């Protein structure tokens, strides 16, 4: 439905586009000039680096440069995929990306719905203001706080000790099994309130008469959530899910880099960290770039797939 309407509007727009006269182009001189400046800027900072992708197919030597280095075809990619570490790195990136996506989504929707059920306006406002706070803190601060909370004398170990669940403090950062849950929790802590903003605004645009009708039918608050609120925000949920699926592989750098240590390396390293390590620290530009290309290509494929699925099910699409 929405798609059809969109197409109609687009048609109208092309019809409306009468010939632009020379006089108008003259008037648009200043727009054209600024466009040119902006395109040059965009070309340098966004498109030129794409040329660097050539490095992944070369035995790149900085001294020889991009144009004179020897081409080696897909050798670098073969080396990349025969590296056991890289396979593990892909697993870590995907696993953390998916876990984070799912838990942050569920928590944001849950929080938005529950907050919406609070009737006192002031209380609601105060809780919402508090909920944004962590979003504004950098990952440096968040990981620092996490270290404090989860340290041997930190509050989490204190509580567990007082509840007699453990008698010796747990060293959370020394065991591989805790790493993914800690990352997921940190993401939920940081972004729940922020991500809920868009759902809250979607909830306010639901037609109030639907709630009244549900009340007359004898629906309690829980039933209203299930049959009015959730269906009402479904389009928002789907469009945001689509936007985020393409970002699954992007979801892993700062926190893993800051929280990771030698003991949990096998589960903490992500593609971005791998690129940083090989490319910048070891100076192997070709391998680092190849890993980066792999990530970009997978991300684009994911976006296209997500969009196709949405199209097939008649949902809103991203493009």
């Amino acid at each position, binding site marked *: 439905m929405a798609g059809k309407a969109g197409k109609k509007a687009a048609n109208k727009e092309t019809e409306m586009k009468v010939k*632009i006269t020379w006089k108008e182009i003259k*008037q*648009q001189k*200043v727009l*054209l000039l*600024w*466009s040119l400046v*902006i395109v040059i*800027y*965009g070309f340098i*900072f*966004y498109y*030129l*680096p*794409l*040329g*660097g*992708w050539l*490095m992944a197919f070369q035995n790149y030597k900085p001294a020889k440069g991009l144009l004179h280095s020897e081409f080696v075809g897909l050798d670098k990619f073969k080396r990349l995929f025969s590296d056991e570490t890289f396979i593990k790195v892909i697993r870590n990136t995907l696993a953390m990306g998916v876990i984070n996506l799912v838990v942050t989504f569920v928590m944001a929707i849950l929080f938005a719905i*529950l907050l919406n*059920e*609070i009737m006192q306006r002031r209380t609601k406002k105060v*809780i919402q*203001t*508090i*909920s*944004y*706070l*962590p979003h*504004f803190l*950098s990952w*440096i*601060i968040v990981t*620092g*706080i996490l*270290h*404090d*909370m989860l340290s041997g*004398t930190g*509050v989490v170990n204190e509580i567990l000790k007082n509840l007699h669940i453990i008698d010796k403090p747990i060293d959370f*950062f020394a065991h591989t099994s805790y790493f993914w849950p800690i990352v997921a929790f940190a993401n939920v*802590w940081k972004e729940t309130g922020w991500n809920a*903003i*868009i759902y809250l*605004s979607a909830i306010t645009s639901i037609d109030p008469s639907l709630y009244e009708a549900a009340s007359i039918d*004898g629906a*309690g608050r829980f039933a209203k959530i299930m049959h009015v609120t959730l269906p009402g925000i479904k389009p*928002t949920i789907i*469009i945001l899910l689509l936007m985020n699926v393409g970002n699954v592989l992007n979801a892993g750098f700062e926190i893993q880099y800051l929280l990771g240590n030698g003991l949990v390396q096998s589960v903490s390293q992500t593609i*971005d960290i791998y*690129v*940083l390590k090989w*490319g*910048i620290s070891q100076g192997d530009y070709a391998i*680092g*770039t190849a890993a*980066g*290309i792999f990530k*970009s290509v997978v991300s*684009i494929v994911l976006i296209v797939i997500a969009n196709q699925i949405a199209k097939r099910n008649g949902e809103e699409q991203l493009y």
Partner: protein
Amino acid sequence: MGNTDANTQHKKKKSAADTAFIVFNSIFMVIFVIITLYPVLNTLAISLNDGIDTLRGGIYLWPRKFTFKNYTTVLGKDSLVTGAIITVARTIIGTLLALVTNAILAFIVSRKRFLFRKQLSLFWVITMYVNGGLIPTFILYKGLGLTNTFWVYVIPGMISAFNMLVIRTYMNGLPESLVESAQLDGAGYTTIFVKIISPLCKPVYATVALFVAVGQWNSWFDAMLYNRMSSEYTTLQYELMKLLSSVTNPGASAEAMKNAAGAVTPTSVRAAATIVTMLPIICIYPFLQKYFVTGLTLGGVKE
């Protein structure tokens, strides 16, 4: 609708379920607020507590041995002071540059009769999905001579497709008649942008300024990657990161302890630095709520 008896019984049952829901919801919200605020308040308490005393544990919401020593130590560190100055500078300059350029671009692509309107939009939307990646970017900045300069913080990433789209969506919503009547009066595009469109766009400009400013304030990776060798361009967050690794890395920690003549420890100094770093944002964001709510809603609009 059945008989009245059954109806009242039904109502009672319903209200019992609703009460249970309200109780559950209240508990959920209380726990949510505690989990959100506690870590921040705890850091504040630690930052105001004697460093050695903190090591004994048991500091929760209130300092046990009150002191400002951690703060004086932080403010006495040259690297942190430099970091603070650079961070303030990059936040102000970066935000202004980003705002002006994104607004100009958004203005151009929201002109319905502009010749290359579609192409220019597409040129930027593509950049949201495809980028060269870390290493080609690193080589480029090096080649352009941006590494080891202040400009690496504010020039790359100045225009972003997302911010442009947010402003464009807002501009598209403004009544076309305003522009048309100005054009009839002979106003050029520059006048229209500066005198007519921009004053109306104040809310969306505030939104984008907030997004950019927070990003600038919180970024550390560019300082580490491009300006590691230039301590004169260090940033607050990067210095904080170094403090963090000195806490978690036992060797460096012992070293720092020796230097720290008694009352302050890496943990307490870091707590103080954390509070100093987050304070400006915490003080400002509650007053800007309506702006970022607008921005997120505009950004979520389908293109």
